[in-house]
């Protein structure tokens, strides 16, 4: 069995091996950065939809701006889709749980009832909505920090 001659057998492979390793590391870093950017934009989109849903919800319950139930539901449905951009192993279920809280707060009680009671600013429904909004916004941000920072 012949011995390995480092200068003849190994050294010539060092430059291409280092090139491949360097490429791998740079590629991995840039993939991570791209995913982070993509998820940052998903978070911002989700947060904007949460705010929009609650504003529409408040108008719906106050009976102002002629906001209809379908408009509120359309935004909440879009939020559902956007939240699913978070992978299952990266906090999706927790986000969906908080989203369900928001859905309950906005579309619970006598939502879509023909005899719906118009609410005022101090009504518990409005307080529930703002609390659920806050919890979901916090969950979105902490999910991002936990998995992508």
């Amino acid at each position: 069995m012949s011995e390995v001659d480092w200068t003849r057998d190994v050294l010539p492979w060092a430059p291409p091996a280092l090139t491949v390793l360097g490429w791998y590391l740079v590629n991995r870093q840039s993939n991570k950065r791209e995913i982070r950017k993509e998820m940052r934009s998903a978070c911002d989109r989700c947060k904007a939809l949460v705010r929009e849903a609650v504003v529409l919800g408040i108008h719906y319950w106050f009976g102002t701006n002629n906001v209809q139930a379908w408009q509120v539901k359309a935004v909440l449905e879009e939020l559902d889709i956007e939240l699913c951009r978070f992978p299952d192993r990266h906090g999706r279920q927790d986000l969906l749980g908080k989203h369900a809280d928001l859905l309950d707060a906005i579309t619970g009680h006598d939502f879509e009832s023909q005899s719906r009671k118009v609410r005022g600013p101090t009504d518990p429904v409005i307080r529930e909505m703002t609390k659920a909004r806050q919890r979901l916004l916090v969950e979105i941000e902490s999910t991002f920090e936990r998995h992508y920072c």
Partner: protein
Amino acid sequence: MSTQTISVAEDFSPAPAGRFMDDGPYPGAAFRENLLLPAIKKNDKVIVDLEGTELAGSSFLEEAFGGLVRAGISETMLRAKLELRSPRSSDPVRIWRYIHDEEMRSGRAH
């Protein structure tokens, strides 16, 4: 084993809304009384498919599914019999939560 599939959009309405019978034409109480409850009593497995429906308000879903527990069906039985299909990931989360919460409220949970 008998299985029944209920397509909410085709068998009931693509826009289910409201809680009680007088809330509108397609409320949760009507869905439960006319379709869901008879299907659960009659079959070993019931598949509820929400494909093609608008997002249902919590008022509708709570009355339709939470109402099953109020009508005497236990969560355990529902877990064994009921299968939910929906294009929205939050629908099953919400429905099982209403069932579980109602079971807790009624004090039937062990």
